[in-house]
């Protein structure tokens, strides 16, 4: 191995590592606030990438019908909850807005020539289509059992993941897809050329992480989510509803997952079932952070990306094994250094 190869591998490793870091952060965020281990996070990544690819190929965007269907179920549940109570106009208006939004998306997806619009708008549309899936998922599958044991939540999370993979096959078909790169130019840095997509991935990842940081440190809504993670009962007593916290974190996780999908779509061919292995690597990062520490999780996830890239060079058949074996020493170290905390309330 010479310097050039090392730099090239490092570049790949950091690109993937940045994505894993984003995923690790969303796994942590969802877990600390709702106690749910978000296994379907990987599906947001693949759905994001495949929707983007569908849009660029000019094929009909079938996902929009799923969005409409789920929104209608959500609205029906909202209305059923209202029956027998005093009608709350604000809530009714909210329901109407949600249905209106889904209908608008259906109209856009079926009338606008999506393949011809600029790529930035394609990416924006992909986000607009997929991010609402996050809160919808929380509302339909997790909110009814928010007080359940965390093991039950994990089982439901796995079930949702399996269902989403099936839905992915139905919506996007079995073929893999790749999207066009955001831009063609690269940056020459001494002996290596920095690929433009690498720069995009790192820029957007850093931007997302900074935005998250500012949200959680500076805004009252972000602080409310942190408060829910620190003390659920305390947060409820102040009127921070667990439903609000759950929907907000799922929306953030969906935003991060879909953005990651859009970012890596030009460099990796993704299939309907590729999401799991990607989010699992983010999960390794989150484990390194002990499912508590955000900075350690992010650094851990970047390390996972680098180790993956270099093991691909030295022992490419054992790439995944090396990455996932990494978890064992960290689990040992964590269980020896950390003291036991009550695992459930």
């Amino acid at each position: 191995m010479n310097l050039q190869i090392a730099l090239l591998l490092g570049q790949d490793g950091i690109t993937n590592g940045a994505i894993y870091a984003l995923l690790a952060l969303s796994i942590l965020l969802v877990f600390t606030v709702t106690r749910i281990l978000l296994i379907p996070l990987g599906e947001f990544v693949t759905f994001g990438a495949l929707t983007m690819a569908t849009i660029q190929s000019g094929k009909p965007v079938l996902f929009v019908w799923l969005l409409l269907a789920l929104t209608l179920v959500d609205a029906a549940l909202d209305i059923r909850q209202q029956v027998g109570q005093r009608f709350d106009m604000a809530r009714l208006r909210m329901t109407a807005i949600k249905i209106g939004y889904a209908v608008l998306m259906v109209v856009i997806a079926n009338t606008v020539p999506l393949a011809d619009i600029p790529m930035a708008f394609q990416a924006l549309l992909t986000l607009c289509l997929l991010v609402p899936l996050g809160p919808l998922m929380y509302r339909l599958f997790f909110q009814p059992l928010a007080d359940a044991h965390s093991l039950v939540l994990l089982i439901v999370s796995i079930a949702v993941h399996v269902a989403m993979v099936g839905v992915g096959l139905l919506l996007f078909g079995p073929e893999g897809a790749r999207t066009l790169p955001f831009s063609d130019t690269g940056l020459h840095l001494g002996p290596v050329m920095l690929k433009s997509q690498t720069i995009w991935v790192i820029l957007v990842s850093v931007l997302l992480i900074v935005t998250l940081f500012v949200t959680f440190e500076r805004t009252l809504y972000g602080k409310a989510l942190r408060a829910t993670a620190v003390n659920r009962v305390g947060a409820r007593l102040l009127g921070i509803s667990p439903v609000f916290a759950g929907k907000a974190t799922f929306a953030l996780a969906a935003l991060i997952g879909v953005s990651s999908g859009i970012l890596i779509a030009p460099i990796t061919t993704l299939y309907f079932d590729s999401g799991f292995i990607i989010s699992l690597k983010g999960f390794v990062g989150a484990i390194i952070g002990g499912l508590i520490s955000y900075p350690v999780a992010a650094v851990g996830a970047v390390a996972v990306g680098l180790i993956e890239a270099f093991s691909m060079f030295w022992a490419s058949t054992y790439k995944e094994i090396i990455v996932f074996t990494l978890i064992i020493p960290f689990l040992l170290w964590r269980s020896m250094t950390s003291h036991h905390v009550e695992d459930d309330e």
Partner: protein
Amino acid sequence: MNMSNTASIHEEPVAMTASAAPLLDVKGLRVAYGKVEALTGVDLQVREGQIVTVIGPNGAGKTTLLSAIMGLLPSRGDIHFDDIHYISPEVEILVGRGLGLVPEKRELFSTMTVEDNLLLGAFQRYRRGDDSFEITLAEIYSLFPRLWERRHQQAGTLSGGERQMLAIGRAMMGKPKLLMLDEPSLGLAPLITREIFRIFADLRRQGVAILLVEQNARAALKVADYAYVLEGGQFAMHGPAADLANDSRVIDAYLGLASKHQELLSS
């Protein structure tokens, strides 16, 4: 039947104190943990600007009573608070309407700063677009100068008394009409207890009603207007606090030498 029913609702407050309808009106409240009934039909009223205390031994159901009123526990019976009528409602709605609870365990956000804890107390007001919570924050800092000194410290690093001040301050940030406190003096030094009870009198002057659950019956009866004695899931007696403080049964059970000894132990 219907007529007489409404008549009795109109009559009752007139008969009792001749003021408006009570802020909190609990009727026939029952709470059960599985098959064990913790509260077996409890009636309680709190009026605006009134301090009401519930005293009673350990395990009488005092904490359960507050949790049920707050909507944290499923319960049966009637609860009216500030024109809303409910049976185990959503906590968030009650907080928005001006009900605050300082629980026995404080439930602070220990890894967040004192100031963040206080600001989150105003979360519902912020959501409604009420910007005046900065003023409330300043008021709370002037009421508890200790919190101002430690505003950038994590809540977990505070002493017991400071935590209690923070818990009370955080609940006050929501501008409650009725503040419920569960054992505010528990584990505090007598000097700090006195300071905190002085603050309750201040709050009443500002028009906040207080429902105080206490084992320290002596201090509670001194500050309260009205008192209930909770024993085994129901009220054994109730009346103006000054009357109860002179009642021989109360003196024997809660204010006598034995309880004084207990008080010393707990302080």
